């Protein structure tokens, strides 16, 4: 077993899956999060478990990975998923023309997309608009955006990972061009300490540029907030998506007795205090009502913004920037050894992202250890707060 010590900065979904994978492969892992776990972007996710259908036309490989990970998450974390499938609905003639290309792309990506008649679809979802023209069924679902990562954290913790919330990293230690650890402040006690590490992984999402700057590394990244709106009542059971190229306001995700609409997107320099534009709320409800008319009269339960990290630096249109997952070895890009940054990706593929980053970690440190996280059921989210694994 390796005695290498890896420090993870950031307690979002990526950090959760990293901590789990690292301890499973025999590393010592310590994670620092400045606030509560998943309080940055992860927890504010609308919760769509992506079959990959939404990305199939744009990028087959991303779509295929989403489908693979959907299958895996259903096996290892079924309690954090409402596995009710999803419907893509065509609203316009243009959408109808797009449908064959959409279905073909899904199938090429290994997504079992199935055409259903409008009548059948409205039996599954009586709340769907009678105006819809075509419908495709895909294996989407809803994630609990707090409890799924917590299952990873719980499993990691019970296997020996140290997870410290409310402990911001205040400095990154460097010696001879190499990152050797971090300085942290435990806000519970206000004490500062230095923690040495064989490798530091920056998994702070939209904040990754700020954290990289602590190591004098330039990481071009654009924080891109988006608005989400939840209305009272479960208006549908299945995820409902507009069958067109991904855009704003085209996803309805049911969860508990709520229905969430996502999302819009703009860019900012400061990810910490993002205000929800009032216009976005009415826009999102209007778009959702095209698919599910009950949104017209639904009562707003909450409106909030979540900040995605987009790779690259740009002041122009955020959609030009990549939504892909980035894993940057700063030894290669900046000549700084012992420091990796991970940004982007999707909640659905958090486990796969961690697998790739830990593969890189193993290569860098000369460790030969296979990833086992795809087969390993996760502990209950409640086990995170309990000394017993059986919660």
């Amino acid at each position: 077993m390796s005695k290498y010590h890896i420090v993870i900065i950031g307690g979002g979904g990526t950090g959760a899956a990293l901590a789990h994978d690292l301890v499973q492969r025999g590393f010592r892992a310590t994670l620092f999060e400045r606030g509560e776990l998943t309080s940055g972007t992860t927890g504010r996710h609308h919760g769509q478990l992506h079959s990959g259908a939404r990305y199939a036309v744009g990028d087959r490989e991303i779509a295929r990975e989403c489908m693979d990970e959907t299958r895996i998450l259903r096996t290892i974390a079924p309690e954090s998923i409402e596995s009710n499938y999803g419907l893509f609905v065509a609203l316009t003639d243009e959408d109808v023309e797009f449908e064959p290309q959409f279905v073909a792309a899904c199938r090429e990506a290994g997504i079992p997309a199935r055409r259903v008649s409008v009548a059948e679809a409205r039996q599954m979802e009586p709340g769907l608009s009678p105006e819809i023209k075509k419908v495709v069924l895909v294996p989407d679902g809803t994630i609990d955006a707090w409890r799924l990562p917590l299952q990873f954290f719980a499993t990691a913790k019970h296997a020996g990972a140290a997870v410290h919330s409310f402990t911001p990293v205040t400095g990154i230690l460097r010696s001879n061009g190499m990152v050797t650890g971090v300085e942290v402040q435990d806000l519970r006690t206000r004490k500062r300490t230095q923690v040495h590490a064989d490798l530091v992984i920056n998994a702070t999402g939209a904040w990754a540029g700020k954290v990289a700057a602590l190591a004098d590394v330039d990481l071009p990244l654009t924080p891109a907030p988006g608005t989400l709106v939840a209305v009272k009542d479960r208006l549908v059971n299945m995820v409902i998506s507009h069958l067109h190229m991904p855009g704003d306001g085209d996803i309805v995700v049911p969860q508990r007795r709520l229905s969430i609409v996502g999302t819009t997107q703009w860019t900012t320099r400061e990810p910490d205090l993002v205000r929800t534009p009032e216009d976005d709320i009415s826009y999102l409800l209007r778009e959702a009502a095209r698919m599910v008319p009950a949104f017209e009269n639904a009562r707003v339960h909450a409106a909030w913004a979540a900040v995605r990290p987009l790779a690259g630096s740009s002041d122009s249109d955020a959609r030009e920037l990549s939504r892909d997952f980035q894993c940057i070895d700063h030894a290669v890009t900046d000549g700084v050894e012992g420091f990796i940054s991970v940004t982007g990706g999707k909640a659905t593929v958090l486990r796969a992202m961690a697998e790739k980053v830990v593969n890189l970690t193993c290569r860098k440190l000369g460790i030969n250890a296979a990833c086992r996280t795809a087969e390993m059921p996760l502990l209950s989210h409640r086990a995170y707060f309990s000394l017993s694994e059986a919660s």
Partner: protein
Amino acid sequence: MSNVQREIRVQRTRIAEDGSRSQELVSYQVPVNKRTTVLDALEYIRSELEPDLLYRHSCHHGSCGTCGMLINNAQKLACLTAIEEVSDDVVEVRALSTMNHIADLAVDPAPLFADFPRHATYLRESEASREAVPPEEIERFSRFEDCIECGLCVNSCPVTRRFMGPAALAAYRREIINRPERRDELLAEVDQEHGAWACDRALNCSRVCPTGVYPAKHIALLQRELEDSESSAGGKSGEGA
């Protein structure tokens, strides 16, 4: 929307050089509009005024259950509580005393889970499925439980003797509904002086629950199930079994 300045008083933990801790209320001026929630105000204070302010939050829409607090002495989720709804005067925010205090408004919710049923599922059948026909790929429509494990009910409960508490007991009853095969085992676990019988029926739990779980109803129904099963078994009904 126009912003007005409002005074928010927040519980802060002062830590002296020797490590001793004291609690105090600190006032902050925060710009608010009609939608500004207590959580938005805390986010403003942390980002603009006090970077070290500790509080829990995650989903910002009442699903994770991390931001339960005492807001003007009422048990509320900070993310769903608009400042303007609370008071047109000062708003005072304190940590839930029934959790393990970390510092400021942050707590460790571990005590909440101590008496939860083991291995309980977090999924239930979706009630919307009564009229809807699920696709052939799945057996039924499911959804997460209503209980978001925020602990507001436990904080509101006036019972001071040892008590499993409303959140755990509601979880027991939901587990019996979700998995009827566990009924006898689970009923035996709540049939204790500090279990279903410790409830004084104050009903605070049902009033403060932000997701409509109505724990008091579940506790009353557990008591009835216990009485029914004891009388059908010929045993004594009543307290202190």
